[in-house]
């Protein structure tokens, strides 16, 4: 049996922000008032961040920030939308100090065009601003640099969600594409519903860190013939997400406004993170007595730089503090300790006792994990050790690299970051004999299992990407994307849970 300590630690560690936890706290046992203690906030939940140079226009940089995870396409009549009370932001550090140099703020405004219906739309929709749309959303994009604050667009339109074949036929061409909006500085923007491009076997990873392809090696060897064999099951299949996609000229985000050409130069690498902020409230006014209604400053409630840092490396008890902290303060706040001594790595010998041991698993700490140090200092984005940047949880991208560069040099929409990170955490880069195989348990020769076999078994999203901006694929529609997660028997042809 799995050790008890390990069990809870692991379950907690893998509780990603996308994976909603139950709210709790009994309310009305009687007169005293208990508000919920644990509160979900999917609208302010930053689920993924991508950054890649544009393949057709290499002078442009694409940044994609996704919010509101695990959306069911058939979520009517109250379809999920961006929140009017959240400031969504994309932050860029261009001089290596991990602090914001360029920030893009996205603020949304919802209007109820037709308050007399419970329906999202009262007729077929043929454009993003179709009169039959009852709930409309627009947004502004503001660019803030150290010198100025500039509104890049004031009333961009969020296209309606992909309701279904009757409401939204020809969705991409008629509704989504026309909502791509040009920006004042030569860029463009899209904000709206998309197919979530992320893919991972949530069901198995959650179940005590199990990787279905390695079922036989797990501490609790599950019979592989449980309906899925050893193939992974994508927990994001059928799920949509809300995307903010930004395309900007590279010269508009670099320090000094140039376009980098030398790969091994500090100035070629920018560090990016996305966030969501809500407004703080002062309960009492400044004199401490007279209550006030004024809302206060913006407080960061969610952030994302390097994928899965929050989900896999930050312990549950520190997540609120981590989400509140800016990447430039990661060191001061003590978060590198978690990042450079990953709990998952420490658990490998317990979870996969026939594969890992303390002898063949990297120990934690900066001195033992030069690979993770390289990850957080931009060295995996093409910088030599002499040009390493200060450590920070930022998605770093080298703007002099080719547009095809993939994670951890930026991140493409199709990158399999789960497999990459499992392999990195297990020590593929610190492998003493560099043969690509996990050493045997005494740490001397090869065990016969290559690091590349460490995989959740899910290699791609179930929805195709677009070949034009915003690149993130068409969202599944509510009529066809019938999800049978909730029922035991799935109709023929509908992918469902095994067994």
């Amino acid at each position: 049996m799995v050790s008890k300590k390990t069990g809870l630690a692991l379950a907690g560690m893998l509780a990603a922000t996308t994976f909603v936890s139950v709210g709790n706290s009994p309310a009305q046992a009687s007169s005293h008032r208990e508000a919920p203690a644990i509160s979900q906030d999917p609208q302010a939940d930053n689920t993924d961040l991508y950054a890649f140079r544009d393949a057709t226009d290499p002078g442009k940089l694409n940044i994609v920030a996704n919010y509101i995870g695990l959306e069911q396409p058939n979520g009517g009549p109250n379809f999920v939308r961006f929140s009017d009370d959240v400031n969504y932001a994309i932050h860029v550090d261009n001089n290596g100090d991990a602090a914001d140099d360029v920030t893009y703020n996205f603020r949304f405004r919802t209007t109820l065009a037709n308050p007399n219906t419970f329906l999202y739309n009262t007729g077929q929709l043929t454009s993003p601003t179709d009169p039959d749309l009852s709930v409309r959303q627009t947004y502004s994009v503001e660019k803030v640099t150290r010198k100025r604050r500039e509104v890049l667009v004031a009333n961009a339109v969020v296209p309606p969600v992909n309701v279904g074949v009757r409401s939204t036929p020809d969705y991409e061409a008629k509704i989504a594409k026309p909502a791509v909006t040009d920006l004042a500085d030569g860029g463009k923007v899209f904000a709206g519903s998309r197919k979530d491009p992320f893919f991972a076997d949530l069901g198995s990873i959650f179940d005590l860190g199990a990787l279905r392809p390695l079922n036989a090696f797990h501490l609790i060897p599950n019979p592989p013939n449980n309906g899925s064999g050893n193939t992974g099951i994508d927990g994001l299949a059928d799920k949509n997400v809300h995307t903010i996609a930004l395309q900007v000229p590279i010269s508009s985000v670099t320090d000094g406004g140039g376009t980098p050409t030398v790969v091994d130069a500090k100035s070629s690498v920018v560090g990016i993170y996305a966030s969501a902020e809500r407004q703080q409230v002062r309960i009492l006014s400044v004199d401490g007595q007279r209550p006030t209604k004024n809302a206060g400053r913006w407080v960061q409630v969610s952030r994302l730089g390097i994928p899965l840092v929050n989900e896999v490396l930050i312990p549950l008890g520190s997540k609120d503090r981590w989400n509140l902290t800016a990447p430039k303060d990661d060191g001061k706040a003590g978060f590198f300790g978690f990042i450079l001594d990953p709990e998952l790595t420490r658990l490998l010998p317990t979870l996969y006792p026939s594969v890992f041991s303390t002898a063949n698993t990297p120990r934690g700490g900066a001195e033992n994990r030069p690979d993770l140090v390289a990850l957080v200092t931009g060295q995996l984005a093409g910088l030599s050790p002499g040009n390493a940047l200060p450590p920070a949880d930022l998605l770093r991208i080298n703007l002099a690299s080719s547009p095809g560069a993939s994670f951890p040099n930026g991140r493409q929409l199709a990158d399999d970051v789960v497999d990459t990170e499992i392999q990195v955490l297990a020590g593929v880069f610190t492998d003493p004999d560099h043969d690509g195989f996990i050493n045997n348990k005494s740490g001397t020769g090869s065990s016969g299992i290559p690091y590349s076999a460490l995989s959740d078994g899910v290699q791609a999203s179930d929805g195709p990407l677009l070949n034009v901006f915003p690149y993130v694929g068409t969202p599944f529609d509510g009529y066809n994307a019938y999800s049978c997660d909730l029922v035991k028997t799935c109709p023929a042809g509908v992918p469902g849970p095994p067994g």
Partner: protein
Amino acid sequence: MRRRLAVLATSALLLTAAPACRGSGAPGPPSTAVPYLQVDPASRSATDRDITSAQDRLRKDLADDGARLELANAFLQKAREVADPTLYTRAEALLRTLADRQAGDKRVLVARTVLALARHEFSEALVLADRAVAAAPGDVSALGVKVDALTELGRVDEALAATQQMLDAKPNLASYTRASYAREQRGDLAGAAAAMQQAVIAGQGGSPENLAFAQVQLGTLLLTSGDLPGADAAYEAALATFAGYAPARAGQARALVARGRPAEAAQILAEVVSVQPLAEYAILLGDSLAGAGRQDEATRAYERVDAIQALYAANGVDVDLELALFAADRRPGKAALAQARKGFASHPSLFGHDVVAWNLFKVGQLEQAAKESAAGLRLGSRDPGQRYHAAAIALGLGQRDAAATHLQVVLDTNPRFSAALVADVERLARDLGMVVPPPAS
């Protein structure tokens, strides 16, 4: 829905026969047995799905403490939704095992605090909450349960500081709702409604029950502010969020009482009590029937209160204070006062002061009553019930100006806060030369 709740009620009664062994007395041998709950497989409720999934995992591996914790939290959430106190007993069994194995885990500590709060073991709750805060500094759920414990223990300044800390760390439904309550206790109804509105917005897309909770609170704040249409809209929104949500139906009944239509309120409440047997609703039902002049039926509704409270007591929920307030109006006397004092000893909140004050008034100890009432109102609450008590006590002492000041708040907020007390409020107003405004339509 009906069928499932009927089953629940039956299981609740079965568990009454064997009360839970609790903290007092020698602890029994730790058991890892899981109190599995039969869940309707067709249910589409997220909480039922959480219960099913956690139970499935535990059936596979009893050592899966992650699943055990999720199941405990799902039971605590379901208790919010269906008002079945035996779910606390189920949660407790799971949490005792976890308390042994995972003593320092913040999530276990928060869940144990939630359970202690639900059972009105507030001192115990504060100890656990402090441990949770120490285990996870800056964690908002740990701070949230600490705020609740401090509030119920009457340590209002510390509660305020912890609430502000929550808001600084993470503005979300959990912190906005507590900010709202902090303002409400200080008499800032508009500020409280504004913060609750922020909670409602921040709760979109999250747990439906949690969002509905905030919507109901908003409705009640608007009702007390005299905005009846606003209250109606908030209660309706809560019902759209969480179908059949009992607190929202009870809110609609309160709005009907405020409109001077207690008979219609009673109709709603009879239905609410049949699906969610909570003492609070049985009392509201009795009050509405009494207000409608149907005394016999009111008496029968009040009789249910004792049976319901016995069930809660059997599942470890300490409700002395609530019963003592009920008793002050129904069967005042030394016994009721003693119960109030006993309740106050473990629950010395602002509300606790009010309950003791009202019981003192009923036995004629006016000076003491005035002191307790003032303590309950020391932050400036505009709660019409508390203000009515304060007005009656002040008038009893011959302090007409003070009585008029308190009663003015009642008239400005909601003079029909209790269907059973409408005539009493009118009498008090007449004695003070004041007039209760006619109900809004």
